[in-house]
């Protein structure tokens, strides 16, 4: 069995004159939780459509679970579980009817089906609502049911589009726990998300794509580290002017300086020595009212790599 769950080699997708994906290569290992991040229109949906066989690349090769997606998409779908963003549940049918319909499509043997449905619904805490119409479910319950459905045929690879979009905090953590459990059982999980907090909490590795190109690929901690090791947030009086920003930016070890709303945000690399020099420089020109030191966030990494907020 190959150790690679998904492999894209030089994949390009064009829609007329628009290049949606431009020479994208990446590899997802078996058993990892892999996050695909990018602002709207970056190409992540197009990428996932090609991985799940809903769309063909203009050029390049895609292998999923060791099978060529271009030649045998149906075989791949048997091992692929999908939780689309809009759930794709039949809202006027009951939870159980949705699951039985899925079982028919995936040819799940009938003899164990009832047991399997019960077990998965119990795990998702939906057993009591088994006979209820999906239209009566909350957003979080629908998400959990969509996940149960995707797991019913025991896929080797699970694709989860925006796992916790529109769900409450309690359901969010329940879903995260469930995804982490899947990893423990050896399932490969591919997620796309607009929540960097979610990507940070779940993903072993992240790929950031922008305008159809891969701009970064690493673990969340390595990505943060590549951006700098400390972020200093300082409130000063008077408000920091252009001159101070220019002087701080010129210091060695300073990665970025942003002045806004009477505060100065400085990202540095090089530890306490650089931090000390930055603070000394700032207090030479202004009075420091408050200072905070923390690790860089993925939002900041994302912003620096793409020049855009993730949820623009």
């Amino acid at each position, binding site marked *: 069995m190959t150790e690679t769950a998904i492999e894209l080699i030089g994949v390009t997708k064009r829609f007329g004159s628009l290049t949606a994906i431009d020479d994208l290569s990446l590899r997802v290992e078996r058993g990892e939780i892999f996050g695909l991040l990018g602002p709207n229109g970056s190409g992540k*949906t197009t990428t*996932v*459509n090609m991985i*799940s066989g*809903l*769309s063909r690349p203009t050029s390049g090769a895609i292998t999923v679970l060791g099978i060529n997606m271009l030649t045998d998409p*149906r*075989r791949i*779908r*048997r091992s*692929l579980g*999908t939780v*689309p*963003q*809009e*759930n*794709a*549940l*039949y*809202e*006027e*049918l009951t939870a159980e*009817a949705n699951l*039985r*319909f*899925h079982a*028919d*499509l*995936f*040819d799940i043997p009938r003899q164990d089906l009832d047991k399997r449905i019960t077990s998965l619904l119990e795990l998702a805490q939906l057993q009591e609502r088994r006979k209820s119409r999906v239209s009566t479910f909350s957003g979080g319950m629908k998400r959990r049911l969509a996940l149960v459905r995707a797991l019913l045929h025991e896929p080797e690879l699970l694709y989860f*589009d925006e796992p916790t979009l529109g769900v409450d905090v309690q359901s969010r953590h329940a879903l995260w726990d469930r995804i982490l459990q899947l990893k423990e059982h050896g399932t490969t999980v591919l997620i796309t998300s607009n929540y960097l907090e979610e990507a940070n909490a779940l993903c072993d590795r992240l790929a950031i794509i922008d305008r159809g190109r891969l701009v970064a690929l690493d673990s969340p901690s390595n990505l943060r580290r590549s951006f700098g090791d400390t972020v200093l947030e300082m409130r000063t009086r008077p408000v920091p002017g252009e001159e101070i920003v220019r002087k701080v930016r010129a210091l060695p070890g300073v990665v970025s300086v942003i002045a806004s709303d009477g505060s100065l945000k400085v990202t540095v690399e090089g530890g306490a020595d650089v931090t000390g020099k930055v603070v000394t420089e700032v207090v030479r020109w202004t009075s420091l009212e408050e200072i905070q030191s923390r690790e860089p966030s993925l939002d900041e990494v994302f912003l620096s790599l793409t020049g855009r907020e993730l949820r623009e």
Partner: protein
Amino acid sequence: MSLRRNLRVVRAVAAADIRLTLREPLFAIIGVLIPINFLLLFLLFALSGGQAPVAVVMNDRGPLAEQFVQAMNNSQSFLIHTASPADAEREIRSGSIVAVITVPQDFDAALAAKRRIDLPVEVNNLNVDFTNDIRRAVPLSITSFYADAFPEQVVVTAQESDVQAHDTGYVPYLAVSIVVAGLMLASLLQGSVNTARDYELGTIKELALAPVNRFAVGVGKMLGAAALATASALLLLAVVILPIGVHPLHPLEVLGFGLLIIAAFLALGVLIGTLVRRRQQAIPLSIAAVLPLFFLSGPFGPANWLGDVPGAIAVVSPLTYAIAAFQHAFHGYQTAPQDLTADSIVLAAFTLVTVALTAFVFGRRGARH
């Protein structure tokens, strides 16, 4: 993929669609009632356009005058009632009748004396179709009257020999054609609405991402839509058989061709739903597809009476073969050059090609997420 597995997919898709349709009563009602409405509308059109309402002013009540009015009645072109000169004039001025025919006071006496008779015919020439009916039917009634009243004086008479075993009225003929159009409309509506619903609700992804044969999905969707289309078909047949009184000569043909017609247009409906992906577009498009095809497929008579261009369109229209087959099932005659086997083959081939085309379109365009 094995037959058992494909059948499981077909059954599951069909059952889910039937349950969903029953839980959306508004769309179900629309799907059943629109074809019935279509049937009633066209029948009213046929009934209202068949005979011109005419008032006859009888200034002579002699036997020959009465026989002449009877000849007009027999022409099946007029809806005659007798009226006084004043009432007849009021009726034609108010637009409630098309013409006033006045039988002159000395009608019988003039005929006996072999004098020329001028028959006053006042026509409301507002609608040329009705006007021409009067212009054609009055001379025909006079000829017919003469042939009956004075057979020794009429030396040329038509010796009719009939191709068909019996006459078929305009309304019974048209009613059968309209039933076929109703079946087409019901099937198109159900097929297209059920499929477009999956796109609208996003549930098409569940089908697109499943490791199933697209053909099996298409057949399942057709069977799901067939449930309501069949209900609509039964209602259409009930209206034609019971109140209108058109009874099928070959009930088994009605059943067999009825199912074939429903299958053919369900397949086309599923294709339309796959292409437009919205119920709001699927409904008017289905209605719009039926109307021109109906008129170009020989609803009023054999399709090859339509002329060169419409006739060529009729040859490629599946509705032509459906109407020809149903006319045989109801009235027992062949209205087209091809026989019933050819009608069956065309309808079955159309169904298979359309399902295959739907599977191809679904595979190409899919339900991208």
